[in-house]
């Protein structure tokens, strides 16, 4: 057992850091640090920069554009990426649909979709959740009826993140309504331009447009867009969700937030003593740092354990979701505390007729919206209650 990074690993970290220093546009970095979302164009441009470097999809097989890095290097890369902070590769492409196609897709699907995914030529979104199925995913109702060489899809998906940008959607659809809930589900790839698809925005509490409803009204999907076998979609979905777990701790992103809070709290604003001189604030931050360091070590243990588990998700990784989301949420809350009364003004798109500009700085104005928005992280991807149920059952045997 040796828990320090080897010299080679340290050198690798330096290499990654150096690349980000030169390749990442400064205004993009600044935007992320201020707590803003990046635009579609910025996301695409950055992904292509990564792809040119060969780092677009590090964890994919080398054959399909992966780097061949071991888990520790992949971990370091992710850490540095989030810490920069740089936009993270679109999860729907890189971590969700891509791996499923690699594992279960046809040769044609791989050849067609994977390079386009890696280069973000196609923007993918995820069609899993439905209005009636929150944590109970298997109760989904969207149907795909076989009709000649096509499936005809009807139904509704929801919480579809960034569907407004998407070229393709990967969907779970019910192909056998008579089978047990988990058995009659298939995994289908659908072109968003197909007639019969309607996207309707869902506005989140802070006023942002991140998620959508997607309606399917007799949408004809070529049968060749079925992934793997009909009615086996639930297995593929479980594989996909298992892959999601490690990244969900978002340790690198939280580290970046801690450093950012420290910087902001160290500055004297308007001649007042810096917040960091307040013992309460300082200790609250230190307490989160401890949790975060522990989580980082826990995450490394899960990563190291991945080889042993051969692709099966480590049930202990539910901790990553629970603790990771708690830490992220607490950090957004500390930003609100730091902003104090300057968190008050709502400035959605800068000034317009009814919203003249407020005097508060940018980071303070985004603090409350981020706090509100981040309530989602303990809800999505299997709520923290569901994660506790998983640990209770699978780890503790209760």
């Amino acid at each position: 057992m040796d828990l320090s990074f080897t010299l080679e690993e340290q050198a690798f970290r330096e290499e990654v850091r150096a690349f980000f220093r030169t390749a990442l546009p400064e205004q993009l970095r600044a935007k992320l640090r201020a707590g803003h979302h990046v635009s579609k164009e910025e996301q695409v441009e950055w992904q292509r920069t990564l792809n040119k470097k060969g780092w677009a999809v590090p964890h994919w097989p080398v054959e399909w554009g992966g780097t061949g890095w071991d888990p520790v290097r992949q971990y370091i890369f992710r850490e540095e990426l989030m810490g920069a902070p740089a936009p993270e590769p679109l999860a729907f492409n890189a971590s969700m649909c891509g791996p499923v196609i690699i594992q279960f897709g046809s040769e044609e699907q791989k050849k067609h979709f994977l390079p386009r995914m890696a280069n973000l030529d196609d923007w993918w979104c995820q069609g899993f959740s439905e209005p009636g199925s929150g944590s109970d995913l298997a109760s989904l109702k969207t149907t795909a009826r076989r009709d000649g060489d096509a499936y005809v899809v009807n139904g509704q998906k929801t919480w579809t993140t960034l569907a407004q940008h998407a070229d393709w959607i990967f969907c779970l659809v019910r192909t056998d309504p008579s089978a047990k809930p988990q058995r009659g589900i298939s995994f289908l790839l659908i072109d968003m331009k197909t007639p019969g698809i309607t996207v309707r925005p869902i506005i989140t509490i802070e006023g942002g447009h991140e998620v959508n409803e997607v309606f399917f009204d007799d949408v004809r999907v070529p049968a060749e867009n079925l992934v793997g076998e009909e009615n086996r979609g639930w297995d593929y979905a479980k594989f996909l969700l298992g892959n999601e777990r490690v990244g969900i701790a978002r340790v690198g992103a939280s580290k970046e937030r801690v450093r950012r809070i420290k910087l902001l709290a160290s500055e004297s604003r308007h001649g007042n003593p810096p917040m960091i001189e307040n013992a309460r604030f300082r200790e609250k931050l230190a307490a989160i740092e401890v949790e975060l360091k522990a989580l980082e070590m826990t995450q490394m243990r899960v990563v190291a354990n991945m080889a042993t588990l051969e692709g099966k998700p480590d049930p202990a990784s539910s901790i990553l979701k629970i603790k990771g989301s708690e830490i992220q949420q607490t950090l957004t809350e500390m930003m609100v505390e730091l902003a104090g009364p300057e968190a008050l003004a709502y400035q959605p798109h800068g000034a317009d007729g009814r919203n003249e500009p407020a005097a508060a700085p940018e980071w303070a104005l985004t603090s409350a919206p981020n706090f509100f928005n981040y309530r989602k992280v303990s809800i999505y991807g299997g709520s923290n209650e569901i994660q506790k149920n998983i640990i209770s059952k699978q780890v503790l045997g209760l």
Partner: protein
Amino acid sequence: MDFDLSEEQRLLKDSVERLVADKYDFESRKRYGAEPKGYSDGLWAQYAELGILGLPFAEEDGGFGGGAVDTMIVMEALGRALVLEPYLATVVLGGGALRRAGSAAQKQKIIPQIAEGSLKLALAHAEPQARYNLANVAATAKRDGDGWVLNGTKSGVLHGDSADLLVVSARVSGDQTAENGVALFLVPADAKGLARRGYATQDGLRAADIDLANVRVGADALLGGEDDGLAVVRRVYDDAIAATSAEAVGAMQRALELTVEYIKTRNQFGQAIGNFQALQHQAVDMFTALEQARSMAMYATMMAQEGDANERARAMAATRVQVGRSGRVVGKNGVQLHGGVGVTIEFAIGHYFKRLTMIDAMFGDADHHLGILSDLGGLLPAA
């Protein structure tokens, strides 16, 4: 000690609750928010009709002679509906300064207009550099003949954009954070040299940043003495703490009801999610937080009448700690128990969460007040 409401208080409670129940469902609130001022002038007229705009003012000044308990009753009812109108700004803050510091002439001129709904006030005290330090006043007032010239910047002035008359604090003498030397002035919103930038607040209400550039006012604009404006502001902020605590309790109560209703009807895994014990206990934590906050809102209402400033300060700080923390528990658990829909703008729960968060941020958050309370030695003596 007596927790019962008087007959009048019960009537007041019933009538305000009925008004918001009739007129302030979630969809109506959206419409009011879309009106030009960001709230409904129609409702404002109905508040006047109901008598709540003149409630806390003395009868000889044109008010209705209500006390702190009456304000508590009104604010709790308004909190239930997340009311958008500037009741706090006009009646509690601006009106409070007038009530506590105004001359008979000033009161008798202005209060009837407040009571009938034709005049709205705002309290322009906070400044960008002050954070939560009420004594930090950089705006200046200089004598100019009989009158005064005001200069400075005020920020986050609640409903400052649509107020007709502003109560503005400015420093007549002393250092920027001196306890003495601050005076209050009545400044018409359309005064020359006064510029307002109005904006929505995170909770869908409104506020404004205000610049004062050589704003001239007459001698009769001075509200109270030249030296003790800050003492008035402190007293008014204490009233506002009691009032917003009651508002928060109303909001928490409704947030709990919405959440319980939701988990009773939302089905997952073949049953209502309200059957799951872990969720039940989260709802119970909301209830406990609510009741503890309700207790402290009552305590603050009682202590707002306490003459000893130090005792009052302890009580208000303690109230803010409890109400702030309870608000977070209720807001967060409420959203969490709603699941995905809880973070959408289409469900009421998120709006309650936002308002509760902003009430916490408004006059110093819970942790800030915990520091104040602990520096004051807490509530109990050592023994």
